């Protein structure tokens, strides 16, 4: 374990070999990395933007020696990254954290915003092994619905439900709205989710009422990425090391903080 962590945590510089525009605010970056190309769905990496910052990013794809991350502009570091071009040098640590467990049977994935990225990675891995794969994806507007074409190729048409807040595509509602009736109509053996924490909390409440299994990938402010600094705690759990994927049983233990509070850069408790 420790030898693995030491290898994964060693900073490697690499070159951005491809950049794809996914939406007006999201770009996908493809990097060669011998360790992160073996990541499992749910794991994350730390991306060093030299001279600017180092940020945690969910892995969207890992194969053939390459790793991909989909990045939305949310602050200085991501704005700088969006200004970079293919050929630029960045640093990578990871892959870090646990991963989604591999379930069989009837599977439902629920993603909001860039939370769809790790779920696409998971869906690609599960598609060959499951009886049925359904996906509910939500975004603010049509332009921000990510990977609709890719997901359409994995799920069959009826199994991909899209929602937008402004009604420009799919159902006009939050991603959580079609969920309750879907769960009452159909049986699912496992539900996976990733997205804004308020959404994750709502989904957790819906699955808890129905006593359904759930795995949710959470996000917290991160510094070290290896379980030392304590910046990413939720309850007794370190999101970087014990997560980022948590089970329904673990979410129950931290339900007072889920969707409510997190630690800020100064270590004080602030609203999510």
């Amino acid at each position: 374990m420790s030898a693995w962590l030491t290898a994964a945590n060693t900073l490697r510089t690499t070159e951005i070999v491809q950049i794809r525009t996914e939406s007006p605010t999201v770009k996908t970056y493809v990097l060669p990395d011998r360790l992160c190309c073996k990541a499992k769905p749910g794991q994350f990496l730390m991306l060093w933007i030299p001279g600017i910052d180092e940020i945690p990013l969910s892995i969207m794809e890992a194969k053939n020696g390459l790793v991909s991350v989909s990045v939305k502009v949310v602050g200085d570091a991501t704005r700088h990254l969006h200004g970079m071009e293919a050929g630029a040098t960045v640093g990578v640590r990871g892959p870090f954290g646990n991963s989604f467990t591999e379930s069989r049977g009837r599977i439902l994935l629920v993603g909001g915003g860039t939370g769809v990225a790790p779920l696409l990675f998971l869906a690609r891995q599960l598609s060959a092994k499951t009886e049925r794969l359904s996906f509910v994806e939500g975004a603010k507007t049509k332009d921000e619905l990510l990977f609709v074409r890719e997901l359409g190729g994995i799920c069959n048409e009826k199994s991909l439900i899209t929602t937008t807040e402004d009604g420009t595509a799919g159902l006009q509602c939050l991603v959580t709205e079609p969920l309750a009736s879907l769960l009452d109509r159909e049986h699912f053996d496992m539900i996976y989710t990733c997205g804004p924490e308020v959404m994750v909390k709502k989904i957790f409440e819906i699955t808890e009422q129905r006593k359904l299994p759930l795995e949710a990938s959470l996000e917290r402010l991160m510094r070290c990425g290896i379980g030392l600094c304590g910046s990413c705690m939720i309850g007794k759990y370190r999101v970087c090391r014990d997560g980022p994927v948590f089970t329904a049983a673990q979410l129950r233990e931290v339900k007072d903080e889920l969707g409510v509070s997190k630690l800020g850069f100064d270590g004080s408790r602030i609203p999510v």
Partner: protein
Amino acid sequence: MERNPLRVSFAGLELENPTILASGVLGYSAESLDRVVRAGAGAVVTKSIGVEPRVGYVNPTLVQAEAGFLNAMGLPNPGIGVYVQEIGHCKTVLRAPLVVSVFGYSAQEYAGVAKKAASAGADAVELNVSCPHVRQTGAEIGQDPKILKEVVENVKAVIDVPLIVKLSPNVSDIALLGRAAVEAGADALTAVNTLKAVAIDVETTRPVLANVKGGLSGAAVKPVALRCVWDIFEELPDVPIIGCGGISSWSDAVEFFLAGASAVQIGSAVAFDEGIFNAVNRGVLSYLRRKHLGSVKELVGLAHRS
């Protein structure tokens, strides 16, 4: 009832075992400190707390070195005004002594924070006079015996819980600074904080840490930390020393006891496995039995006699 051979007492503190969580690691919330106690730590030290909130440095704040980590977090902390609530929360959940680490930019600030921490329930205060990467505090205080004395005297005057001073290895004579701290009222010394260090990336030709300079911890510093404990014990054989620096196994801990430490702090090794506390305790216990010794205390400074 059989006496617990791992139990240690020094400077008025009673610990079920001699392993302590070092400051800076998982040290904000009561839940995370409780988790470390449940993992077997005999006591825990919080992140260093100052007067005002600090957000710390931008990332990278941690980078892997050949045999350890370099970090420059920049003393992120919520400020004592907010943190007193967390100390109160800690006191209701922790089943081991809580040590609050304190820093300031003047003797008055150190004293003010220490007083509030002690009133809120801290079982001891540890002065961070050794952080190598923030200006006008930490090591800039602890490298000068005159300033160090002033800080320790001011803190000692306002608290009645044990006062521990965490020393820097970035000095020419650590025993001299240990003596200054003890003469000013320190009840125990922690040796040592991180070694000031730099990491450079050759591809980008840049320092990796956003702050450029950071503190080196982990296996790389162990022999240096051990020498520091050795030097302090030679100078001050009656002062309790808490050894700190690169401890990741029971035999590392025993080396520190033999050099003169009454207890040890563990930090970087928590990254690999928080089971480290129990692993060290089990190993020390079996070593004591194998050597027919009744307690950790019998090991303290033993190497100096041979």
